[in-house]
């Protein structure tokens, strides 16, 4: 489903973020990307949403080389993916309902679909009573659950979570991971980038360790946080 072939990425300041990365992720997998800051975890995720393009190599999703996508195709790719960020990246001027609805509306959903699906998903993430709350009226954990609801609403094939627990306490972190596991059980591929060893060790799924832009270890089953 997702394939990185000899991928190299260098940022504008000449920082080599990825060096010759080869990786294959199958549909329905739950993959934890671990490693210290600057290891290249976020770069791997940003390549998948076409925020950046590799200098060398190819990134493929469902057999399509992302470098071949035109500007108009990029939103279509992003609609196949749900993304969760450490800093939540919620729309501050929109309330919980509208934040989630936006992701559904861009996919062309009708008003009726939006009105029936959004409250359901907000209920699933435990924000049924916060439908009209704005992000600034929510706690960190609630914001992240809202970001998960937004990532889920259009039933994406892939969920990318870039340090989703980075700004949360342990209780909220476990809640977020439980939600991600539940989503994965429904068949969605989940890629979780984190440096939280306790979280990773509790998941017990595939763990890919990265360091200095390279994959240094790939534990396909019952992976643990090892650098």
């Amino acid at each position, binding site marked *: 489903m997702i394939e990185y072939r000899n991928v190299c990425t260098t940022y504008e300041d000449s920082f080599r973020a990825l060096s010759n990365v080869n990786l294959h992720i199958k549909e329905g997998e739950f993959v934890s990307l671990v490693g210290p800051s600057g290891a290249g975890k976020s770069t791997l995720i940003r390549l998948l949403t076409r925020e950046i393009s590799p200098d060398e190599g190819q990134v493929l999703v469902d057999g399509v080389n992302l470098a071949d996508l035109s*500007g108009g195709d990029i*939103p279509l790719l992003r609609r196949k993916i749900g993304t969760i960020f450490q800093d939540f990246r919620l*729309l*501050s001027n929109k309330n919980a309902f509208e934040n989630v609805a936006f992701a559904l509306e*861009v996919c062309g959903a*009708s*008003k009726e679909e939006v009105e029936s699906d959004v409250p359901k998903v907000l209920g699933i993430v435990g924000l049924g009573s916060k439908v009209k709350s704005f992000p600034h009226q929510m706690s960190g954990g609630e914001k992240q659950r809202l970001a998960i609801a937004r990532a889920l609403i259009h039933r994406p094939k892939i969920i990318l979570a870039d340090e989703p627990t980075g700004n949360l306490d342990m209780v909220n972190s476990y809640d977020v991971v439980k939600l991600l596991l539940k989503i994965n059980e429904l068949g969605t591929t989940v890629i979780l980038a984190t440096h939280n060893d306790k979280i990773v060790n509790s998941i017990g799924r595939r763990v890919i360790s990265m360091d200095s832009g390279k994959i240094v270890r790939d534990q396909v089953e019952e992976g643990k946080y090892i650098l």
Partner: protein
Amino acid sequence: MKESLKRIWSAGWLNFKRNSYLSLGTTGVMVLVLLLFSALMAINFLSLRVVSSLQEKVDITAYFKSNATEEEIMNIKNDVSGLEEVVRVEYISREQALEGFKASHAGDILIQESLAELDSNPLQASLNIKATETSQYVSIVTYLEANKFRSLIDKINFYENEEVIRRVESISGGLQNWGFILTMALALVAVLVNFNTIRLTIYNQRQEIEIMKLVGGSSWHIKAPYLVEGGLYGVFAAIITLVIFYPVIYLASPKLEILMPNASLMGYFVSNALQYIFLVFSAGILLGVISSAVAIKRFLKV
């Protein structure tokens, strides 16, 4: 399509409403811009009135020798009236000239006594000629000089007035040209100020735009509500401008009329109210929408 337009409209309106401080500031700047446009229109109207009243005051008079008969003068009047560049020709007989002279010097006893002592009327019959443009007097004078009745004409006061006519022409031209340049320069400054204000407003929302892109929003889906928001700045700014501008000219117009009796600013803006309102709304909406479109472009490249 209808649902999509409704969604765009409602997103734009919500954005406008929820960013109330930003919207207020941006609308305020746009009000200043539209007031400046309106003031420039008023100045343009007043300067045109100044030019036309100056031109109105310029004419030439051909004075006839005392042996010229009224019939001969009327023939010349008919000839001159036929010229394209002539707006009006007025015949003033010797008697009328005397009456006029007496009336205008009614309070001057010395002149009145001198006139009473004269046996005959010393004043000449004349034709007062008014041209469409001040620049056309030369050709009218040339025509009169070449006329078959030239021998009946004693003098044409164009030569005395030539310098005044040239000066009026130069002032009129200068007012129109410099007025246009000044209007354009101020309008450009106003547009730039307005554009930068909207750019800053959208710059404040750049993170939101990036997020919308990352969750799969197409450029149009993201851009359209901002265009609506830009248009709303224009609509509200136009309404506020009208609410301020009309009372101001209502108060200023009578005072200006003391200085320039033929220039009723209120009359001008009332008789052209529909065009003016259309212009203010169009300028506001276009400024808002175009500025938003240009400003948002760079943030859509995520």
